[in-house]
């Protein structure tokens, strides 16, 4: 954690008033030692690969092949292999893009925003959440790059990225689609950098442990990336400042990225898209779905690796409450959209919302409402939050619901726009379906590699929030 304040003597008023100490939740339970934390996290990497990991890797790898095959076929045969047809020319591809980017946002929120808000409980989950962000951005980026059809024009000769090209043409910077290019690229790059900077002290620990255990090859590999870190306090001073600045810069980044993604829709004129509620609504929805995915990933890891002392009930409570809060914001946004559609007396807007609830895609709409509005409300109840299996199931519902939300927004507005003669019904083709489900395989492969080779929790940050870290020997004064 980074606050470089120097010590002030306690003001005299404190001795007079003698406030009761505030009960704070224990972040690492069972009075663990610093060494216990190191052994626990490094033990996962140093142990032989568990059998379940190989099975999961095989399954994920197989799933990932669907995406590779789907993309290869798409590039070879053209965008016609997807189910897109007038009027619905954005469908699963853009839904999947927004879905994956949204998931990524929770990682940055946990790392950056919770750091600025001094929420110490973030330390158990932030590394895995940041890794989730990076892999989610990888899965997301597949879609805008490949949905253009002629991918070779998109990336290099300057349709997306401003490179000099043979037509001497540059991108048009008034378009949110171009803003997206910079937003998502910046987001991916900064996320990787932030994650890597956080890893440096832990890579140093692994470097030295492998060296002591006699494994010179692994020690060398981890050591390269550890940059020669030696735990020097003069280094920590600069490191903490850099971390704080990265957190400070990542916060407006995460807010802006999903805002810009929402602009893809909001700047159009379509009923159901052209509303100013989209930026905050999308950002809240992204955090909602991201925390759902964090729970989906961390709860099984907690059970498998016996991390109950590090990811405590308090941590799970906090995550559930954030899901509840953001889910309620999303529910409020649904209500507000409906209200404004009626209040604004725009017949097209009004129709768009009636159509969502009762038209051809009503089935998708009600799945969305059930998963996004009703599901998080269970988290009001402590008994529910303490039932880990149930929390995990609810987190799956949250992700399903958020996928359907993007589907409802994108497809219903396109399928029924201004002119009835343009109306059409969209169905995904098999290629689209396989490509999407394959991205879960891509994500799984990357995440499994992460948990096998890298420390899933930031040991240095966790130790810094344990009672042993307090120089005044036990009382937490902030």
């Amino acid at each position, binding site marked *: 954690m*980074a606050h470089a304040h120097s010590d002030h003597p306690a003001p005299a008023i404190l001795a007079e008033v003698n406030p009761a100490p505030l009960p704070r939740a224990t972040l690492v339970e069972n009075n663990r030692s610093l060494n216990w934390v190191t052994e626990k996290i490094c033990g996962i990497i140093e142990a032989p690969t568990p059998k379940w990991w190989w099975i999961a890797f095989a399954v994920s790898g197989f799933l990932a092949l669907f995406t590779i095959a789907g993309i290869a076929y798409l590039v070879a045969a053209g965008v016609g292999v997807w189910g897109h047809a007038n009027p619905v020319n954005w469908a699963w591809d853009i839904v999947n893009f927004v879905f994956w980017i949204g998931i990524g946002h929770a990682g940055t929120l946990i790392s950056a925003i919770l750091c600025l808000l001094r929420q110490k409980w973030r330390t158990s989950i932030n590394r895995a959440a940041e890794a989730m962000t990076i892999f989610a951005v990888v899965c997301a980026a597949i879609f805008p790059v490949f949905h253009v059809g002629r991918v070779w024009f998109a990336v290099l000769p300057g349709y997306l990225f401003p490179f000099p090209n043979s037509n001497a043409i540059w991108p048009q910077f008034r378009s949110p689609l171009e*803003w997206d290019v*910079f937003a998502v690229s*910046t987001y991916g790059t900064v996320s990787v950098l932030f994650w890597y900077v956080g890893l440096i002290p832990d890579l140093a620990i692994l470097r*030295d442990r492998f060296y002591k255990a006699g494994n010179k090859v692994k020690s060398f590999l981890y050591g390269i990336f550890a*940059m020669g870190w*030696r735990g020097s*306090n003069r280094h920590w001073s600069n490191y903490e400042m850099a971390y704080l600045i990265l957190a400070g810069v990542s916060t407006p980044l995460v807010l*802006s990225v999903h805002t*810009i993604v929402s602009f893809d829709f909001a700047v159009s004129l379509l009923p159901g898209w052209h509303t100013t509620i989209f930026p905050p609504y999308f950002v809240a929805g992204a955090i909602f779905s991201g925390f759902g995915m964090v729970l989906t990933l961390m709860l099984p890891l907690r059970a498998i690796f016996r991390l109950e002392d590090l990811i405590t009930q308090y941590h799970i409570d906090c995550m559930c409450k954030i899901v509840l809060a953001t889910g309620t914001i999303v529910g409020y946004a649904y209500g507000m959209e409906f209200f404004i559609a009626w209040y604004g007396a725009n017949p097209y807007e009004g129709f768009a919302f009636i159509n969502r609830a009762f038209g051809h895609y009503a089935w998708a709409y009600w799945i969305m409402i059930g998963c996004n509005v009703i599901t998080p409300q269970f988290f009001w109840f402590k008994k529910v939050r303490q039932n880990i299996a149930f929390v995990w199931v609810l987190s799956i519902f949250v992700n399903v619901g958020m996928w359907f939300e993007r589907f409802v927004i994108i497809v219903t507005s396109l399928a029924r726009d201004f002119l009835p003669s343009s109306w059409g019904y969209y169905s995904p083709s098999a290629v689209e379906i396989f490509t999407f489900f394959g991205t879960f395989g891509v994500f799984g492969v990357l995440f499994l590699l992460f948990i096998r080779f890298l420390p899933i929790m930031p040991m240095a940050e966790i130790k810094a929030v344990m009672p042993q870290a307090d120089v005044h020997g036990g009382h937490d004064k902030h």
Partner: protein
Amino acid sequence: MAASLYGLIARFDTAPEIYHAAEQVRDAGYKNWDCITPFPVHGLDGAMGVRRSHVPKFSLLGGITGFITGMSMIWFMNSVDYPLIVGGKPYFSPLFAFPVAYELTILFTAFATIAGMFIMNLLPQHYHPVLKSKEILRGLDDAFYVVIEARDPRFDLARARALLTQAGAKEISELEA
């Protein structure tokens, strides 16, 4: 005495101990010395007399560069080199250019911050006497060390040992360069 002595390294077992030890070493007037800790110890900067980090200066420079780069790039591309008429609107406006310039500001700030951190820390530095020592294993795990370098003008082997012992060190050893 070792032919090439880098300095002394002394172990302390808790954060309060190293905090108070650091204060004593600072007050004794040493300049070339350091603490090795497994995590950033709150308040140790003040106890060591370490000034505020210079990394923010790099970040500011990076951010300003990013913003100017974004705005000028868009101005040049959409207004000078290949002017694009979009909806009859002006070729360039800081409003429409803002999102991309904003993202580049953040990107360049991040690059500059990390570069600044590495530069100020003189990293990567894969060789260092502390890294050769047996103490580094615990120094990154659960123990806290003070290192006083022999090149410090005030350094005297016996006096440094005495200071560290008096500050409460559990074990003192010599580091070879």
